[in-house]
């Protein structure tokens, strides 16, 4: 894949590091899929991705309970595999996640909920993770629902 990429003389990320923020939900928007295509292309071009941050409706991507038909791409599974293979942290915003019913075991116990559904290797954390990227040399790209 990298052979087909044009040689880059300028980069929008001076340090060669990207942070991806996904705010569009899988299946109701193209955001998670477009972001995954971008992420693969970035690594193929020897760029680094320091973090993928799920915000707003984007947190649905981290659900372990999505089960699309077997002939359709399972976006949650595909993202989880990509993050694991490349050791990239995937973080779902805790406030967005709790509103939308995405919880890990700790939050399940804290709020006395009946189940947890956070898919590995995703983690739940605060907006501070995103602030950390915003304060760094990393270039943040937002993948919204569009329209």
């Amino acid at each position, binding site marked *: 894949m990298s052979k087909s990429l044009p040689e880059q003389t300028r980069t929008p990320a001076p340090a060669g590091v990207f942070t991806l923020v996904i705010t569009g939900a899988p299946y109701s928007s193209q955001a998670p899929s477009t972001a995954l295509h971008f992420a693969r292309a970035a690594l193929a071009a020897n760029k680094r991705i320091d973090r993928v941050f799920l915000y707003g409706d984007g947190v649905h991507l981290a659900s372990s309970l999505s089960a699309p038909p077997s002939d359709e791409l399972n976006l949650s599974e595909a993202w989880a595999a990509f993050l694991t293979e490349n050791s990239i942290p995937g973080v779902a915003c805790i406030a967005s996640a709790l509103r939308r019913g995405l919880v890990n075991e700790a939050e399940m116990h804290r709020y006395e909920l009946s189940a947890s559904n956070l898919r590995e290797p995703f983690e739940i954390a605060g907006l501070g993770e995103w602030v950390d990227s915003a304060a760094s040399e990393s270039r943040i790209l*937002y993948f*919204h*629902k569009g329209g």
Partner: protein
Amino acid sequence: MSTLIIIDQSPYGSWEGREALDMAFSLAAFDQPVSLLFCGAGVNWLRKGQDAGKIQQKSIERNLAAAPVFGVEALFADRRACDQYGLAGTDLLDHVSITDVGPDFTGRFDHVAFAG
């Protein structure tokens, strides 16, 4: 690293605007310079006298009024959008600056992010 967060959607229709506000407050809480720009239908966020009780939501007016206290540097309203919605300076919350938006304006910030 200064950040401008742009809200271009009307209030109460979705949670995206509120969550954008949380992003701004988070940056401010970590002492990162941040400002908010309201444009398009988003300028309706800045109206005085909002009452969202009948749709079981909290008015965002109080949150916005507290923005300077929490360290958000400035609240900007796009002049063209204000004209479009018939909003004069006196209709808007205190601390709001009506401004002409263009590359000169957004170029003042290191990061520019839309709400969603």
